[in-house]
């Protein structure tokens, strides 16, 4: 039948990943835990006490003591939502239309997500979306200006323009 348009699919995955991430970050602030603390079995909130020379002490400060990572991740989730949905003021801008930018941003979002306990699935999904956009770049897909203006209703405007081999 038709042609699979990678950036259209990646957009849905990116939106899902970001909604998940925002939700996960809320819970990450309530229940703070560094994802990689299993490496040296340093338990949450320092119970049982952390070893004196915890190699990741600094990152624990920013996840367990002050939930900076969670807040940053949440903001990134909102930013992704803003350029993916898209928010009216981002319609037609490079943030919405440039897939390379989106790929890079999603990879950063994934890297931030993976740091805290609740963010693992958001990490995975953001990476999947980034893979989708990478594929879109590889195939030379572009989002036309018309498509970007009416992202929610037109399913075919972009298809017609990008389906040229």
């Amino acid at each position, binding site marked *: 039948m*038709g*042609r*699979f348009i990678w950036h*259209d*699919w990646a957009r*849905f995955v990116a939106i899902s990943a970001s909604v998940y991430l925002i939700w996960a970050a809320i819970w990450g602030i309530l*229940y703070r835990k560094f994802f990689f603390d299993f490496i040296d079995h340093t*338990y949450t909130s320092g119970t049982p006490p952390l070893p004196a020379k915890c190699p990741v002490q600094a990152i624990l400060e920013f996840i367990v003591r002050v939930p900076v990572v969670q807040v940053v991740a949440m903001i990134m989730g909102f930013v992704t939502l803003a350029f993916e949905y898209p928010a009216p003021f981002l319609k037609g801008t490079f943030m919405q239309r440039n897939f390379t930018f989106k790929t890079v941003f999603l990879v950063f979002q994934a890297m931030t997500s993976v740091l805290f*306990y609740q963010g693992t699935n958001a990490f995975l999904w953001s990476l999947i979306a980034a893979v989708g956009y990478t594929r879109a770049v590889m195939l030379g897909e572009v989002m036309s200006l018309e498509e970007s203006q009416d992202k929610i209703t037109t399913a075919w405007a972009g298809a017609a323009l990008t389906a040229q081999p």
Partner: protein
Amino acid sequence: MKISVWNVIHQEFHNRRRAIFNVLWYGLQLGLFVYGWWSQATNQRLAPLNTLRFSVWSSRGAGLVLALDGGMILLPMLRNIIRVLRPKLAFLMPMDENVWFHRQVAYSMAFWTMVHTTAHYVNFFNVERTQLRPQLALQIHYEQAGGITGHFMLLCMILMYSTAHHKIRTQCFEAFWYTHHLAFFFIVALYTHATGCFVRDSAKPDYTSFFPYYSTDHCLGYESWRFIIWPGILYFGERVYREIRGRQPTTLERVLVHPSGAMEFRIQKPSFKYMAGQWLFIQIPDVSAFQWHPFTITSAPEDPYVSIHIRQVGDWTQAVGERVGAGPSVMASLTKTAMAGIEKVNDDLGRGDFVEVNSSNWGTLPLVRIDGPYGGPTEDVFNVEVAVLIGAGIGVTPFASILKHIWYRQRKGNLGSLRRVEFIWIVRDAPSFGWFQSLLSEVEAAQTDPNFLRMSVYLTSKLDESTLWNIAVNDPGADFDPMTLLRSRTLYGRPDWKSIYSHLRTAIELEQYLPGRESSLKTSVGTFFCGPSSLAKIVRRQALATTTETIEFTFAKEHF
């Protein structure tokens, strides 16, 4: 249309059936959630787990609802069972809406997954923090059956949901079709989700060496897999049955190429029984060994063959065209001839005849398999006195079969209560449906009672100047309409549904339309619609609004 709370409430509850469905379906889920919560919270044997408080109660409640959803999600996909049950349960529920229900289950599933997963993230966090069990949170997440299958199901869900989106599905059906087969692994993960024995009253999981590999003495889950495995088994059986049925002897007898660019496949399959208005899946192993493509059956059950009409619009259909020796280039030249035919003065019926693809020139015809039939038969047209058949765009295809079938039954004098048929066809460019036009003109020419069948064709595309001249020159005084070559005149623009229905009502009331109508009895006017759902809503509203005390208007949307 803006989505407001009021609109949603109105839409969900204004219709009694819809309201009952909502109350039952969401009530059942909420009830199960409450029961799951309560049975966990009050279970003395699970007292240690209950120290986790709200998170464990909500995870258990949501888990029970998810078990229900996991059982329900496959039920609307049991296509063959639905086809058998449909007429028996028509009074109870609209079983044509099976895919709609499948989606509702999926939406519910997404919501309860959110609740369940969130709660478990809190559960395992607190298990680790309080050392309720001597484990790390991530060990429960990624080393135990529950965690592994759960995360795996989440992965399957993001892939399945995202590719099932309307936009992706219409762009590339295969992406949706293949990805949706992750459902097999998803469902296996669902059935084994509780085998890790997370809900237990013992310190260690109570595993056994025999099926189901854990002991229910200490593993106190809901054992829901014992109930929800049955739809899974039924579905698996159905797929096996479809595979066997698809392999029954089938021969592609003839391939006819219609000048308008459609290929007609005439297929012989003695074991294939169907009714008008149904559809089938076709597979052509030479083109693709796995893909099954849905097509509307265009022959009537009385015809000695099963036919479908294929237009070469996508990868697969073009590949099929190439395989039978009627590839896009052949079609293009034929279509050009057909288009040129419009310019000609109507000498005879039709736009030139179809061309048969000669098998000796093009090698043997490919092997085909067909699976079906599916969908609701339109036998209901014989239960109403006036049938209004509305086909919009490509949605006109089921009416080929239905009109032929009506014609066959008319010949046999076996029309049931059907007295008149109004056929309304809304189309953007009629020439691309040339094969349908020739069929219509055959049916039209065969009419003996001039009042039985009335056709109205609405052409919605803009007309260019030469076409306008063609109409101006050829229309007045001609026997046939210049655009469609039918006796019925083409109407230009979009139909005004309100006036169509009110005229129909007035005509019936004045007793011109159905002579001898008993005004004391109810006259039923059934609308049978096939086309885009946005238009369906408009037509449905107008049709239902026209109902009076003595004339009942009904509406049915065909699915294909």
